[in-house]
């Protein structure tokens, strides 16, 4: 258990710079998720923390101590790999005890610690099996067991759930979360899946092209995205983005395609200004009044209905929890309740706040 600080970290592979001055402060015991599209540098950042890649400039501190140039084994971290990286010729027990053995812990002590970790993860009946005899979820659990057996200062997870099927993923998500509650160890977790990030994190770091876009709690990111990229990345289905300008009376938003959407509350920017308006699918209301739109497609998911709307050439996605009586091709009115719209600068994509 320890705080982790990353200061001005950069990483270049030859002439290609993949991380540009990353600053992150992670509190003791915090669950931090690094999220971003593929190629954003999130895995590289995790490997810098682990010491599997050399940092180009900047510093990494674990528990107040600079570890930037230390060998992975001297950083007191444990890592769970995407492929699990279980040693195939060793039994579950041997896999879990390997790090202790490499640190010359006595056999009795080793067995005690492995048994304790196996107990926490429900692996006790599997200790004598080999990785090839285990299911995906069990392997995942062994990989976590190997990490917790040593009681390191920081756990690193590199997309650990991406090889599991959807149902198991949800289950393991909850297991990792409850494991964190039990152990209270600092966790840095990498994923490209924003749902994983939202459900598991205390704090999310959104990365794009080697830059930090925003750091905050899941709901901060959802409610007040710092820019259009974060706004589109967080939330499923993605936020709708409409280019246009604020109506002359300041009571509506006129899209670039010429539709005037009435706003119930006046926007925080001067009338006539060009902007991108972001609108979460779950915030759209349909009714007899409002801007005219046509229903293109209806996708029922059981719990929700996803509706694709055509707003004079702009496509909108809306989500409804009620089973509305809608038909494809039907014309409806789109209304936007107060206080749910986001505005972003057309040039920079930055949030325009009131």
């Amino acid at each position: 258990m320890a705080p982790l600080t990353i200061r001005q970290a950069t990483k270049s592979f030859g002439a290609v710079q993949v991380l540009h001055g990353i600053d992150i402060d992670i509190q003791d015991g915090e669950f931090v998720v690094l999220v971003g599209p593929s190629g954003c540098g999130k895995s590289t950042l995790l490997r810098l923390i682990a010491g599997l890649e050399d940092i180009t400039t900047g510093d990494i501190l674990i528990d107040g101590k600079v570890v930037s140039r230390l060998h992975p084994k001297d950083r007191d971290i444990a890592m769970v790999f995407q492929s699990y990286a279980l040693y195939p010729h060793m039994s579950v027990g041997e896999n879990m005890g390997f790090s202790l053995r490499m640190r010359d812990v006595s056999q009795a002590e080793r067995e005690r610690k492995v048994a304790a970790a196996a107990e926490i993860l429900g692996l006790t009946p599997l200790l004598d099996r080999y990785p090839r005899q285990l299911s995906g979820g069990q392997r995942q659990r062994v990989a976590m067991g190997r990490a917790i057996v040593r009681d390191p200062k920081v756990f690193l997870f590199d997309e650990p759930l991406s090889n599991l099927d959807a149902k198991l993923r949800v289950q393991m998500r909850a297991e990792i979360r409850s494991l964190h509650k039990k152990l209270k160890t600092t966790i840095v977790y990498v994923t490209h899946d924003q749902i994983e990030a939202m459900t598991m994190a205390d704090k999310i770091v959104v990365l794009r092209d080697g830059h930090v876009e925003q750091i905050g709690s899941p709901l901060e990111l959802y409610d007040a995205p710092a820019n259009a990229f974060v706004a589109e990345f967080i939330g499923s289905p993605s936020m709708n983005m409409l280019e246009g300008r604020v109506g002359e009376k300041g009571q509506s938003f006129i899209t670039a395609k010429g539709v005037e959407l009435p706003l119930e509350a006046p926007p925080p920017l001067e009338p006539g200004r060009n902007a991108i308006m972001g609108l979460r699918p779950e915030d759209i209301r349909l009714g007899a009044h409002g801007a005219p739109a046509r229903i293109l497609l209806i996708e029922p998911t059981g719990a929700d209905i996803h509706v694709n709307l055509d707003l004079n050439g702009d496509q909108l996605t809306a989500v409804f929890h009620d089973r509305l009586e809608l038909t494809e091709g039907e014309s409806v009115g789109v209304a936007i309740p107060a206080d749910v719209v986001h505005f972003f600068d057309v040039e920079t994509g930055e949030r325009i706040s009131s």
Partner: protein
Amino acid sequence: MVSWQRGLWLFFVPSFGLLAVVLLWPLGYAIYLSFFDYFLGTGTRTFIGLGNYIELLSEARLWRSMWTTIIIAFGSVALEFAVGFALALALYRLNSSAKVFSVLLFLPHIVTPVVAALFLKWMLAANWGLVDATLLTFDITPPDWLGDPLWAKVSVILADAWIFTPLIMMVLYAALQGLDASLIEAAQIDGASNWRILRHVIIPALIPAIIFTISVRLMDVFRFFDLIYVLTGGGPGTATETITMYTYQLGFRMLEVGKASALGVITLVIVAALLLSINRALNSIYRGGDR
């Protein structure tokens, strides 16, 4: 099995037919001949049962050549494996620009063994060969590479290693490429030193490839002929006379075809038994877990 699949055995016929003609028939014929006293000089063939076997197994020359074969086989395979594995690990660690070396290192294996043996013979020639000439400029008196009984064995082993180390290197290098790199990274984080990563992660993962290379090389080296034939001709005396050299002497020099066939059968049995036990030993290490 689906009914249309029953006819598939027909596809097996051409390759089996070929194998039968070039492999099974000669083998059967050799076993048949081994029961005869058959001197090619007179062409008379007399059935003597196990006579050839009894005569051969009581001969000192057979056991001496067997012993020579084993020394040369294990010596060269051990050397090839050690050097080949070290080179494969070095290549694995090098970045891509340095991988040109792998092509250079593979060159000796592209040369036909007989050609390689011929120019090794020139290089090792007494006094004026490249090796001797070089050593003499440093005032080192070189040994008689091909004329001394002990050094002749060493020269043969070195020559075989020169040709076949690249093969082992390439097979093990390919196997290393297939290794999940995160296994090594996991072991680094677990605190294993480079030596322990090699011992506990890399070697266990390579066992199938290691079994393959060692078995193939041992099988090959027991049939070892061309290099020795050119380099030493089995000499000096019988210092480098392996079983195959002895078989050749019996069959084509002394024209004792029956006896030579019997020796071939003995070789087959011994090599098969040896390889089976080596495979079993290596496999048991693999299955035994990590102790």
